[in-house]
């Protein structure tokens, strides 16, 4: 089935995650092969997703780990884990 650009945009996220069914995926690919605009949108969306997963984007502040373990140490010295309960986690 020939898809419009709008139809392709609506499927870009699932296309990237590879969760479209085979027929729809083939239709999207056929459209992408000749549509410069949609393939640019696909590439740029994919780039953003790659960026977000990169450790450098949300990097740790200086000495973050040291402060975390120091605070943890204080608690570990004085407290045991609580007995098991039915909780939200």
């Amino acid at each position, binding site marked *: 089935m020939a898809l419009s650009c709008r139809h392709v945009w609506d499927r*870009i996220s699932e296309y990237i995650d590879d969760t479209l069914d085979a027929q729809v995926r083939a239709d999207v690919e056929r459209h992408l092969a000749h549509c410069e605009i949609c393939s640019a949108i696909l590439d740029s969306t994919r780039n953003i997703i790659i960026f977000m997963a990169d450790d450098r984007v949300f*990097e740790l502040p200086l000495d973050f780990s040291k402060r975390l373990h120091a*605070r943890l140490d204080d608690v570990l010295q004085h407290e045991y884990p*609580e007995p098991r309960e039915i909780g939200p986690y």
Partner: protein
Amino acid sequence: MTNPAPVDAIEPSSERALITSIIAGDRDKFHLLIRPYERQIYRTALALVKNESEAEDVVQDAVLKAYRKLASFRGDARFSTWLIAITLNEARGRLRKENRTTFDSLDERSEESGDYTPAALTDWREVPLAALERREIRALIQQAVSELPETYREIVTLRDVEELSVNETATLLGISVSLVKVRLHRARMMLQRKLVPQLRLTAKPEPKRRIFGRLSWL
């Protein structure tokens, strides 16, 4: 001083053994248990609460809560997922307390009918990962995530920052898989529309070769 190098995840079976021995009284081992996940939960916190010192507080509170509640970890989820769930709740609690959240009353149907037009800029095809060495590029991405409405920020954080599966994300947020997909698509399109024009302006390609300069002897 700086942060230690990232630590690889511990094998699930050793992780279970570690948890058992901490609960049995070997409390110091909790440091080892959480080390592999510090970065991951910090990223979650930072994407959710919007500033670094607050994110650090969220992580510390979440880690302490994980220690105190360790005996309640049932082991049917991954330990990392459990930690992220606690971090998510801590961040949400903090946002609620400060009344910073916009409560959205969107239902699944109204979300599906939304109409989003992505930014179509054909000259932003390739922004190399090297661009992330630049602080202003990282700041733009962080800011774009932080400006998403909370519902979308959570989805994108779990799926695209933490790279959890759609099913894990659905379980953590207590929503259906199809709603995760709808919201994820919407969130990514919002980011695409916002970031593409900005990154295009900031991540300039290499300067063009100065042909006329080189040929000036003509």
